């Protein structure tokens, strides 16, 4: 069993990201709607904490900002919903697989929940079948879930099918969760949008999309690229063409814009994860935006 969590923690604790780590904790704490009224303890303020939680008196005494921590009324379940089609087995950029990136963002979200004492569950699937893992607390369980995600993704898997996966969630998940959708869809069908609308009523939906490798990038010009869906090679001579590269970039940008618009219409906060370094920032932005969206 590869230690996915260890790697994620290592990355999170890299000095440059230490601030971000605390920041994420604050963000995560703030997304809980049903915070209980029982005071638990005080901790120092980190960016992202709700200003309403600051204990001004205690802060004045301690000469530093402190926020009140409450014992949550009930545990919040984080449900990781990962589309594990074969397209996830492709490259994200010249260095990283989409699979690794998907495991990474799932791991970061899961870790936040685990550190908060919340149970983490998993739903994953492709066009052929969908599976679910029960929500449990603990890093060991999370590690196992990440292993499942990692194992489910391969070039030989069936194609990804987000609507089917979402329908599965609608069908099987009864309670309210924080639903973290990790997918690589480039556009959303009407069907998907309806499902998202339906799910966002029940759950706190966080939408993370993972990008694709631009085959016309000069950094991969010397590598052989195979379309994971069709199983055919994308010829090298073709990828060197400047007009094609331009057209592709325009198409990707317009599709991205389209996707954002549709999710905005539904009211689902979403973020595109460009690479591993950008993943933490993306999750931070996602959590922040989610809080603001809820306040609206």
């Amino acid at each position: 069993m590869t230690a996915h969590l260890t790697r994620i923690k290592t990355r999170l604790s890299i000095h440059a990201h230490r601030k971000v780590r605390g920041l994420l904790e604050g963000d995560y704490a703030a997304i809980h709607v049903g915070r209980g009224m029982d005071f638990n303890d005080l901790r120092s303020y980190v960016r992202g904490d709700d200003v309403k939680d600051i204990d001004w008196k205690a802060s004045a005494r301690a000469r530093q900002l402190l926020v009140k921590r409450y014992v949550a009324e009930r545990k919040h379940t984080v449900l990781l919903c990962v589309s594990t089609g074969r397209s996830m087995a492709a490259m994200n950029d010249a260095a990283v697989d989409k699979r690794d990136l998907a495991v990474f963002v799932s791991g970061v979200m899961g870790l936040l929940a685990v550190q908060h004492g919340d149970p983490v569950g998993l739903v994953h699937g492709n066009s052929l079948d969908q599976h679910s893992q029960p929500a449990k607390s603990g890093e060991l369980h999370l590690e196992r879930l990440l292993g499942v995600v990692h194992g489910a993704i391969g070039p030989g898997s069936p194609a990804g099918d987000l609507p089917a996966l979402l329908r599965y969630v609608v069908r099987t998940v009864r309670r309210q969760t924080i639903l973290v959708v990790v997918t690589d869809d480039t556009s959303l069908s009407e069907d998907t949008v309806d499902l998202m609308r339906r799910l966002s009523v029940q759950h706190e939906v966080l939408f993370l999309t993972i990008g694709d490798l631009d085959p016309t990038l000069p950094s991969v010009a010397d590598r052989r690229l195979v379309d994971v869906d069709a199983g055919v090679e994308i010829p090298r001579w073709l990828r060197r063409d400047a007009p094609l590269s331009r057209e592709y970039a325009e198409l990707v940008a317009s599709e991205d814009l389209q996707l954002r618009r549709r999710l905005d219409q539904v009211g689902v906060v979403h973020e595109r994860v460009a690479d591993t370094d950008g993943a933490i920032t993306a999750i931070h932005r996602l959590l922040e935006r989610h809080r603001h969206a809820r306040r609206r």
Partner: protein
Amino acid sequence: MSDMSVGWQSEDVALRWPWLVVALIALVVVLLVWWGVVRGGRPPAGAAYVAHATRLRSLPRYQALVQQRRVIGVLVSIAALVTAAGAIVLAGRVQERQTLEQNDRTRDIMLCLDASGSMAEVDADVLREFRTIVDGLQGERIGLTIWSGVAITIFPLTDDYDYVVDQLAEAEAAFASGDVHSDDYALYTAGTVIDWDVQSQLGDGLASCVQRFDRRDEDRSRAIVLASDNEPLGEGIFTVEEAAEFAADEEVVVHGIAAPLTADRPRAEQQFAEAMSTTGGSFSLLGEDGSAAAVVEAIGELEAVEIDRPPLAQVLDRPTAGTLLAGLGLAGLVLVWIAEAILAFRGRRRTP
């Protein structure tokens, strides 16, 4: 045989090594199939995967590039196949087999003319007749010997008809001048008389002419056209009968043409005619029925012996078609490559 190539007849065009052609074609087919299987099969190992490439494929520029590539590919394939075809044809060595039929009519005809003064006109007539038929000859050899006391060879047996016609014309001009005392005549017949007491020896003349035939080992029809008035002066070595015997022994047919005046001397005419019949030839008096023409006719009837010589064969390489094909293919390849390079250069990123 003045022009060799005319006689050569193309028999067939074939390949020297047809098995090589078959083997090379098989090799090309095997290579094509192998490429099709290997390249059209599973994706290459060590390749990176990329998803949602359908978006790339839907781009108009992609379609244009693929179309462009397809056209180039088809052209390159055609050019390569043409080149390969040319190379294969070259490898098989196209050869043309030519044969030279040697069943020419194998007749040797010696014109044997009495050069004594009384015969000049007759000789001119015979020569004129002969000149007209030389054009229709093929394979026959003609020779000209004139004699009086002694025989001299004007030209030996030859099938160089241009030369023969020239010589006959010259001889005719010399004889037809009519004046026996003219320089032309004297120069032309110089050497035929070494003793003025011995002239117009029909026996010696005929025997000399029989000796003029060469290639004795070959089975050829031999004929002499003998023009004379059988009016010998002095004593010769051969009598007419002996010479006729000699000709008959040598299987030479002698056709006699006697001058009209011979009729005045029945004994001489009789002797002449008998000698001719000894050899199986004809005898006629000139002027009574156009005898020169009759002689020519007789010669035509003379059996042309088909000798049993195998036809000459030569085998020539004919690389033109293969070279042309391969050259065309290569030129096509170069052109397509240039076009491809130009297209690729245009699409190249401005700042790599």
